[in-house]
C-alpha cells in the first residue's frame, strides 16, 4: 500500500494539523517508508489469533460513587490561554 498526497491532506484534517506543500511531500516519503516496513506483518497469517488488548490481567474495580474534592475551579482555569472568571473562552461558534 502506498499513501497519496491527497490521503495525507485528508488525514491531516482528521488530525487537526495544517501542512505546507513541503510538509505533505516529506510526510509522503516518510510515511511510505515506515508503512512499507510495516508490511512485514503481512507475512504472518493471523486469522485465528485474537487481538491482544490488555497485557496484564485486569480486575474491573468498582468504587463508591462519592463526591471527592479534585482541583478547584480557579486551578482548573489557571493554565488557560484565555478565560474569564468562570469559563474557558473560545472564538464565537454560533453566528
Amino acid at each position: 500500500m502506498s499513501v497519496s498526497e491527497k490521503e495525507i491532506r485528508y488525514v491531516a484534517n482528521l488530525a487537526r494539523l495544517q501542512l505546507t506543500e513541503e510538509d505533505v511531500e516529506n510526510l509522503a516519503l516518510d510515511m511510505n517508508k515506515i508503512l512499507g516496513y510495516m508490511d512485514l506483518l503481512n507475512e504472518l497469517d493471523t486469522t485465528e489469533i485474537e487481538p491482544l488488548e490488555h497485557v496484564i490481567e485486569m480486575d474491573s474495580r468498582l468504587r463508591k460513587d462519592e463526591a471527592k474534592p479534585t482541583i478547584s475551579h480557579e486551578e482548573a482555569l489557571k493554565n488557560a490561554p484565555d478565560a474569564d472568571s468562570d469559563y474557558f473562552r473560545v472564538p464565537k461558534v454560533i453566528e
Partner: protein
Amino acid sequence: MTIQTIAEAKKKVLAGDVTLRELVEGYKSQIEAENEEVNAYVYLNFDSAFEQADAIQKKVEKGEAGALVGAIMGIKDVICERGKPVTCASNILDGFESVYDATVIERLHAEDAILIGRLNMDEFAMGSTNEYSRYGAAKNPHDTTKVTGGSSGGSAAAVAAGMANATLGSDTGGSIRQPASYCGVVGLKPTYGRVSRYGLVAFASSFDSIGPFGHSVEDVATVLQTIAGFDERDNTCSSVEKDDYVVAAQSPKKNIKIGVPEALFGEGLDVEINTGIKEILNKLEADGAELVPIELPHSKYALATYYILATAEASSNLARFDGIRYGHRADKDQMLDELKAEEEALKQAVKSAEGDDLVSLQQELTKLDAPLTRLYKKSRTEGFGVEVKRRIMLGTYVLSAGYYDAYYGKAQRVRRLIKEDFTNAFKNVDVIVTPTAPTTAFGIGEKQNDPVQMYLNDIYTISANLAGICGISLPAGTHSNGLPYGIQFMADSFQESKLLNAARLVELLG
C-alpha cells in the same frame, strides 16, 4: 566529583557525617559545572531543594527519616509536579504549570527524596535520541558530540554526569533502558501496571511505564520499592503485592536460569558488544547460572507492531492538546484574518470559474474550517514538533476508516503472538538476556533523516513493552570507542525481583 549512590549518601547523612543541605550544595555545584554542556536539566529549583533538605534534616535528627533520605533526584519533564512547569519538551505546553503531583512524586516525597529539577527528553517521549526537544539535544556525558539516547535522555545523562544520584524516566518502547545503555547507568522499566501512571502525561497508554535510573542495582531497587504498588487513581495500576526488591538486589541467588535468544545476537549487533556480553554470560555460568538457548520466533515483527500501535495510541492521546484549556494557543486575530483571506480568495475564484472547477471550488468554500476548528489546527501546528506530527499522522492514518483492520487490528493480533513467545520462554527460564541496544551512542544529527533507522535503535527493548513485562539495563562494559554499552535482562510480569537478582550478579562481576 565522586559518584555516590543513594545507599552511600544515606549512610553518611544518618551517621551525621554530612547534612542534607551540604549534599544539595554538592549537587548544585556539579550541576553548575556540567549542565550547560550536557543540557540534562531544563528546570532547576535550588530554593525548593534547600527547603526540602532542611525539613528532612529535622526528621533525620528525630530518627524519622524515610527510605530515600540522601536521594537527590531529577524528574523527566513528562511527570507532573505541583507548581512546577511541565512541558514534555514541547512548545505546545509552553508556560504550563501542574496543579497536582503525580502519585510517584507523592511517594518520593513521602520517603524523603529531594527533588531538584526537571529533565530533558524527546518531545512527548517520542524519539530515541533526545534530539527532538524544544530545549535542544541533551548530550552524552561520556562524549558530548554523541546522543544520550532517548526518550529519557536527560534522566540518564543527569545520573551519568553526577548531577543526581537517581532520576525518574518513562519507558514506552525502550526510553529508559536504551539511554541507560548509551550513558552507562542502570535503568529499570517495571512491568506494565506495577507503578501508577497518575500524573504521567500519556503517550501510548497500553505501553507507558514509569521507572528509575541510578548508579547501582540496589539504588534502582530502592526507588522502585517506593514508587511501585496499587493506586486507586490509575485504573491500569495492579493490586499484585510488591516483593522486597531491595533484598532481591542485596542478596542475589547465583543458580538462576538465563534464557539466551541466540538469534538476537547476530546481524546488526556491534561485534564488540556481542563478545562483551557473551563473556559476561560465561562468567555467570561459571558462577552457577544455567544458560538456556531459547527462541522468540516473532521478535522480528516487534518493531513494526510497536510503531503501529504506539502511534495510534499517541494520535488519540495527543488530541487533548488543542489550545483551549492549557498550553499554547495560536493568535486569534491572525487566525481570523487568515480564514477571511482564504474565504475571499475562494469567492473571487468562484466568480470566474466554470464547470468542474466551479463545483470543486464551491465544495472547498463550504468545507472551509469554522474559526474554532482553525484555532485547534493552528495551535497544534505551531505547538508540535516534527517527530510528534509524523507520529500523529501515522497513528491517525492507521486508525482511519479502511485501514484500521489492515494495520491496527493486524498489529494487535501480532502483539498476542509476541506475548505468547515470552510466556512460553518464561516457563523454562527466570530471565532472558539480550544487548540493550545494537550499538553505542552515535553522533548527534547522524540518524535524523531516516525515521526507520532511528526506530531500529529500539529493536531489543521494544518487545518488553509489547509483552507488558519488565526489563533492566545495566553497564556491561566500555567499547574500544570509549563509550559504554549495556546488557538487558527481561523477566515475566511482576518478577522485578528476578531482574534485580540477575543484574546484581553482573554488577558483582565488577
